[in-house]
């Protein structure tokens, strides 16, 4: 293979870095080691852009795949199976990009126990990359859980006043969901093994996807999986862990949370729920879409009345990810493509918002909007980046947020499954509301006269901070004006997901008896490895 084991390198290089930082003594050595590890990982991940062939869909198997099946006894078809396709390639790139940005953003922010912090951050990156790369549901689950532990400590040790409460809530909440998913995985592995793998328990994505459970099995399996991912997204009304976690987490933790951790939920919906349980997904799409739209409006309105800027942005995530879920359950290429790009967009623009709020917190040690006011006068560069990110987040055409939101809405509107004009119109009000709460935040914190003397001497961004925001701002512009390259990368894969859904559903209607049906006619070639 020309690029060797690049995927494994991307997954485990941060872990190696974590081992190194664990052994280092001085703070600057630790920071540099973390920075170098994440930067090297990022540079290597750019190889994906070069080696990735966007014309191949998901159906033909992952690209740059690696399989080690000797990991588990032969009685179980559980493999270390990683690779990339159109669904995850951008998310992997986003993860590796955020790596160095996170390290740099914590450069002076983290004063307590830096070794533990950077080690955990690196472990976290391994977990997240692993989640996105896994083509084995069991492996996915392991990485999924692996992300919990570092995040727990990051919130619990380096967080704000109520950090313990937030950390415990975060872990318990997500754990409940993922344990339910584990039950689902075990059942599914058995049933799929019986149906398509000669009785051998299997968690291979390509084998499970050929298995088409009967309607009632699909339904409860779908809810086990969807519940777990809905918590992670988070979908209304399972969102309350998010504001607490965001507010209490240190700046870097919030960025990684908003930037990529939440995307594990939406990614899971696309990767697993839809192709595994297409019948149930379409049957309950309207329910999920309604919850998503409630989330869009509800998140926005609650966001508007928060006195805490970080909480405001946290609730805005509930609103924005409602759009993503809506797009996923529209079952049209336009909407799902919009959802894919919106995951990236949200990661970048909300990530930038949290970074900037972190910088403000570092200067003034407060998150309350009342404590600021008029700081545009003392920190013009910070204000520039804030306004820029706010506009991107509010979906201004020409910046990234608009592309995703527009495609999601336009695709949902023409959807046969959830294309109720009133539902989509209700979702579109989210565009108005986004302007309402985000501009309110700007108004309260940045404009007007300086009311608090401490704000008069606030220091503007230094070059390190400019350097870590500038790439994000450039990406917002590039993704806003020329997203077609990025959209192309996922197009074939989203189309194959929709095709899998369609063909499995039509197979269901052919076999009305409700018996489990193994669809051999699917255009999925499982023997790619």
């Amino acid at each position, binding site marked *: 293979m020309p690029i060797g084991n690049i995927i494994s390198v991307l997954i485990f290089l941060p872990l190696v870095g974590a081992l190194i930082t664990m052994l280092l003594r001085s703070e600057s050595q630790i920071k540099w080691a973390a920075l170098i590890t994440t930067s090297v990982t990022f540079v290597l991940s750019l190889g994906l852009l070069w080696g990735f062939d966007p014309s191949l869909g998901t159906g033909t198997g992952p690209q740059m795949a690696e399989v080690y099946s000797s990991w588990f006894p032969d009685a179980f078809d559980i493999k270390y199976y990683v690779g990339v396709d159109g669904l995850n390639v951008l998310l992997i790139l986003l993860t590796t990009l955020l790596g160095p940005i996170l390290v740099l953003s914590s450069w002076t922010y983290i004063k307590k126990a830096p070794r533990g912090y950077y080690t955990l951050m690196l472990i976290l990156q391994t977990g997240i990359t692993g989640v996105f790369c896994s083509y084995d549901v069991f492996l996915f689950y392991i990485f999924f859980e692996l992300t919990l532990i570092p995040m727990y400590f990051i919130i619990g040790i380096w967080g704000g006043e109520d950090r313990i409460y937030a950390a415990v809530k975060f872990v318990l909440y997500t754990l409940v969901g993922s344990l339910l998913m584990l039950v689902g995985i075990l059942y599914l592995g058995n049933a799929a093994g019986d149906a398509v793998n000669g009785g051998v328990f299997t968690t291979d994505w390509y084998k499970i996807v050929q298995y088409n459970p009967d309607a009632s099995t699909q339904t409860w399996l779908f809810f086990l999986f969807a519940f777990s991912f809905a918590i992670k997204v988070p979908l209304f009304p399972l969102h309350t862990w998010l504001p607490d976690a965001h507010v209490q987490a240190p700046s870097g933790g919030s960025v990684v949370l908003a930037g990529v951790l939440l995307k594990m939920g939406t990614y899971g919906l696309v990767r697993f729920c839809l192709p595994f349980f297409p019948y149930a997904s379409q049957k309950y799409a309207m329910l999920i879409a309604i919850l998503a739209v409630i989330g869009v409006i509800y998140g926005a309105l609650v966001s508007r*009345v928060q006195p805490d800027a970080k909480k405001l942005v946290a609730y805005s995530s509930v609103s924005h990810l409602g759009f993503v879920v809506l797009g996923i359950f529209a079952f049209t290429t336009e909407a799902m493509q919009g959802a894919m790009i919106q995951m990236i967009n949200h990661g970048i623009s909300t990530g930038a918002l949290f970074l900037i709020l972190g910088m403000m917190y570092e200067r003034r040690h407060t998150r309350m909007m009342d404590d600021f006011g008029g700081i545009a006068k003392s920190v013009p560069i910070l204000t520039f980046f804030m306004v820029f990110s706010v506009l991107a987040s509010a979906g*201004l055409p*020409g910046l990234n947020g608009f592309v995703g939101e527009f495609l999601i809405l336009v695709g949902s509107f023409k959807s046969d499954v959830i294309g109720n004009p009133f539902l989509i119109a209700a979702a579109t009000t989210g565009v108005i509301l986004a302007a309402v709460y985000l501009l309110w935040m700007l108004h309260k914190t940045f404009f007007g006269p300086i009311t608090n003397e401490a704000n008069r001497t606030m220091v503007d961004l230094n070059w390190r901070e*400019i350097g870590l925001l500038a790439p994000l701002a450039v990406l917002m512009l590039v993704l806003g004006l020329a997203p077609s390259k990025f959209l192309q990368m996922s197009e074939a894969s989203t189309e194959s997901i929709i095709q899998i859904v369609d063909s499995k559903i039509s197979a269901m209607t052919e076999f009305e008896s409700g018996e489990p049906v193994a669809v051999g006619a699917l255009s999925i070639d499982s023997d790619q490895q």
Partner: protein
Amino acid sequence: MNIDSLVLLAIALPLMGAAFNGLVGLFAPGYRSNKTLIGTLGTLCVAIPFAIGVLLFIQFDHDAHITRAFTWMSAGDFTADFGYRVDQLSLLMMLIVTGVGALIHIYSIGYMRDDPGFWKFFAYLNLFIFAMLNLVLGDNLLVLFLGWEGVGLCSYLLIGFWFTDLKNSEAANKAFIVNRIGDFAFLLAMFILFKDLGSLDFDVILAGGASLAPATINWVVFLLFIGATGKSAQIPLFVWLPDAMAGPTPVSALIHAATMVTSGLYLLARMSSLVLLAPGVMTFIAIIGALTAIMAATIAITQNDIKRVLAYSTVSQLGFMFMAAGVGAFFVAIFHVMTHAFFKGCLFLGSGSVIHGMHEVEHQLEEEGHEVHLDPQDMRTMGGLRKYMPATSITYLISTLAIAGFPLMSGFFSKDEILFKAFEYGYSGNGYAWFVWVVGIITALLTAFYMMRSYVLTFRGKERWPNADRIHPHESPASMTGPLWALAVLAIVGGFLGLPGVIAHGDLNWIHHWLGAPYGGPVAEAVVAEHEASFIVVEWILLILGGVIALVGLGYAWRVYNRDGIEFDQKLAIDFRGLYTTWANKYYWDEGYDKAVVKPVLGLARRVMDPFDRYIVDGLVNGLGSMVRAFSSLFKYLQTGVVQNYAVAILFGVVLLLGLIIFG
């Protein structure tokens, strides 16, 4: 250079100017003091596109030319390119935008000279021109929407330009959010069009429009019109425009009078063949336009802030344009857009010149140590300025006459054409057009009255600021009066581009020939029956009536305000007791919205949703946790913390097990 690269250059230049002035100014504070460089650069980035526009105009050969830069987004069946269309309509709009824009850039060099945010101001202005060019040149609705929201953003940034005053920032937010409500409707219209036609390109939409179901067309046109009411400040979304006067005056002239606010009309003209398929909605458009026109005109009578008078006048004039659109005379609407850009641009710049002068008075008073707070925009403290600012005074008067419809000036032709079209449409059997016509006539009378009022109060009579015998303002510099003269000349002659039908049977109506669909242009129009030959008498009567009305309104205001000065307002207030209060309070729109929308929504969010989230949704989660805790608290006493206790338990367990194994 071929047309493609010229078009792209014209669009890219303002963006580059904005990026350069903005980013260099932001990161290299030393650059900010090079005001001549910044101003020249900013102006060139608009003047060159204007020159390109002129070139394209000369070369234009009656075929729309489409330039495709690159694909913007594509997913599934959806594709939108950065495509730009050069045709009669977009060229005319481009010339207005860049021409008036360049003049206002020059003006701003003088007006903003002492402002520390000079660099930022020019960056924003250039960004605005970029967005506006996307709006008028875009070849599909999505690029138009990019410009549409882009100009909204610039409007937001420029209204809040002096952000240290919280009121300005509030006005900026209001403008953006109210516009967003319109954009919401715009988005829905795009969703419908894509669902039914599979594309947002103008060619596809206009060609496929006829194949759509009538209900769909009605919805699309209605939603687009709602979008237009946001941008073009019509009932019910006009409330942001008067507040938008918080921005610097060149901004009010460029964005909130000459260009941005007319983009709603541009949208309707662009979609004219689709709009004509929805006669029900056209009725609605015309009536909304008429109501807006008269409502804003009555409010304008009562305002004392010179810029607010002009703001309400703008709302009112936009209402006129929508009347034209509502009776199917889209080219006349565009004609009025153009003449309005000239005279209203000139009026706003004139008011800026006045404010500039009054600031000088304010400074002199401060230097003398007076504790007076002079509002430099309040006409009650002005008066007699024509002595000190002759150029401003004359150009302001010219534009006042033009907007009022003084015979043979630009407003005379464009406004009379609107009224005539309304009359004609009513005459050919569309009853609502009569209503529009009557309201239009009354509004024209009011317009002449309040505009002359503002001229007289500002420039004639006695000086009303303190110590007027010693302290007086000076005329503004040439960089400011130059654009004033240019616009004033255009305000005089601009009307000859659209000579009415009574002259040479309309053959000299250049704008109709240029834009109108019957002559191969892109703007469709409602077809009315051929008139009998004697109808020309009616046309003459209407034309003369229009002139007479203007003269009556102007003359009456001239007489009473020269005689009584500001006191005449009190007489008005007494004569129209109830009405006047309503007018002065702007028909209570703001209060109404506050009570009906803002407060309930915020109240819902603050009193219902936030507690709901905290105590119900989160309460359930925490309740689950407490349940587990309560359950486990029964067993917690087993946990003594002494390892030896546990060891004893283990010992007993082992003994028990052993016993079971041995004896069991």
